[in-house]
C-alpha cells in the first residue's frame, strides 16, 4: 500500500463521489415522487392510468438498470431524442426507483385495515382528513423498512453509471487502474468511498426504522 499514491488520488475520487451523490440524490428524489404518484394511482384503481402504471412497474422491475441506461442513452437518440449522460443517469435511476417505490408505498397503503377508514368516517372525518391523518401515517410507518432498503439499493445501483461514460467512482477506479496499475490502492479507495456514502445511509435508515416502529398500532 502506497500512501502517497492514495493521497494523490483522493481529490479525484472525491470529485467522482460528488457526481455519484448529485445524480443519486436527484434520481432518488424523483423516484420517490414517481413512486408516490404511481402508488396512489394503483391503490385507488384510477381507470386506464392504473393499467399503464402496472405495465410501467412490471417492466422496470424486471429489467436491469444497466440495460435501461443503454437503451435510454444509445437508442433514444436514434429516434431523434437527444440525451446527455447526467440526465440519462438521473432519469434511469428515477424510473427504476419509481417502480420499486410504487410497490413499497402501495403495499403500505394496502396494509392499513379497512376498519381504520370506516372508523374515521363514522367519527365524522371527511375523505381528505381520513387520508391525511389516518391512512398516510400508518401506511408510512409500514413502508419505512422497504423504503430504506430501496434507497440503499438505488444508491448501489448508481455504480453502473460508468457504462454511459459518467465519471463516477467506478469509472475513476477503472480509469486509474488502467493508467498506472496501482490496483490495490485504487480498490481500497473505491471501497472506502462507497462505504462513506452508504454506511451513514444504512445507519440512518436503521434509526428511522426503529423510530417508526413505535408509531405502529396494535401489538
Amino acid at each position, binding site marked *: 500500500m502506497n500512501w502517497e499514491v492514495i493521497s494523490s488520488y483522493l481529490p479525484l475520487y472525491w470529485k467522482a463521489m460528488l457526481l455519484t451523490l448529485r445524480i443519486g440524490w436527484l434520481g432518488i428524489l424523483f423516484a420517490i415522487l414517481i413512486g408516490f404518484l404511481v402508488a396512489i394511482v394503483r391503490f385507488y384503481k384510477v381507470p386506464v392510468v392504473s393499467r399503464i402504471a402496472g405495465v410501467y412497474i412490471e417492466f422496470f422491475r*424486471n429489467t436491469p438498470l444497466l440495460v435501461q441506461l443503454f437503451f435510454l442513452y444509445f*437508442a433514444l437518440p436514434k429516434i*431523434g431524442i437527444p440525451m446527455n449522460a447526467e440526465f440519462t443517469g438521473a432519469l434511469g435511476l428515477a424510473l427504476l426507483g419509481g417502480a420499486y417505490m410504487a410497490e413499497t408505498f402501495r403495499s403500505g397503503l394496502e396494509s392499513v385495515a379497512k376498519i381504520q377508514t370506516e372508523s374515521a368516517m363514522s367519527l365524522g372525518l371527511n375523505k381528505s382528513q381520513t387520508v391525511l391523518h389516518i391512512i398516510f401515517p400508518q401506511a408510512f410507518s409500514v413502508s419505512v423498512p422497504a423504503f430504506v432498503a430501496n434507497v*440503499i439499493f438505488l444508491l448501489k445501483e448508481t455504480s453502473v453509471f460508468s457504462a454511459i461514460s459518467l465519471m463516477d467512482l*467506478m469509472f475513476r477506479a477503472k480509469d486509474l487502474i488502467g493508467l498506472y496499475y496501482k*490496483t*490495490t490502492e485504487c480498490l481500497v479507495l473505491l471501497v472506502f468511498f462507497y462505504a462513506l456514502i452508504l454506511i451513514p445511509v444504512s445507519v440512518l435508515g436503521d434509526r428511522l426504522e426503529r423510530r417508526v416502529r413505535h408509531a405502529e398500532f396494535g401489538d
Partner: protein
Amino acid sequence: MQNLGIDVLFKGTNMLRLLGGLWVSLRISLIAVGFSIALGIPLGMLMTKDSKIVKAIARLYLEIVRVMPQMVLLFIVFFGTTRIFGWNLNAELASVIVFSFWGCAEMSDLVRGAFISIPKHQYESARALGMNSFTVFFFVILPQTLRRLLPTSINLVTRMIKTTSLVMMIGVVEVLKVGQQIIEANRNSSPNAAFGVYGTVLLLYFIGCWPISMLSKYLEKKWSNS
C-alpha cells in the same frame, strides 16, 4: 417510418448470437443461485442460534453485502485477486464467486427471517402434543418456513438474473456485450441498430424475469393466509 434497426437482428446469425449471450448471463446466475441456496440455507439456520460470535460475524458479512455495490465486489475479485494473490481468474469465474457471495448473504437472511417469523407457540403446541424435536422441526416448522421462504427466494433469482448484466463491465461477453458488437459491426449498413438491438435486449430480460416474478407473487398470495 424511420429505420429502427430491427432488421439487423435478422441478418446472419445475429439473433442466435444474442440468445447465446443471454445464455451466458443465465448460466452465471443459475450457478450462483445454486451456490447461494446450498450455502445460504445452512448459514441462515446457523444465524438463528443464540451465539454472540456467530451473530457478530453474520452481521459483519451481511452489512458488507448490504453496503457494497456488486460492481465494487466484482472489481475487487476480478482485479484485486490478480494483483494481491497473482491469481488469474477468468471473468466468468470471478462473476460466479461474487454473485454466490452476494446471493448467499441474501439467502441466509431470508432463511433466518423465515425461521424467526414462526411464532413460538407453534413449537410449544407441537411439543405439548407429544412430538419430539425432530418431528416438530420436520412436520410443523419446516413446512411453514418453506411457505414463507419460497416466494422471496424465487424473487432472489430474478434479482440475480438482472444483476448479472453487470458482468459485461469486467469483460464477460454476455447479451449486452454481444449487442454492442452487433451494433459496431453494422455501423455503416444500419446506423440505427442501437435502437433495435438494445430494445431487444431489454425485452429479452423482461421475458426472462417477468414470469418468475409473477410466480413469486402468485405463491406469496396463495400462501399468505395460511
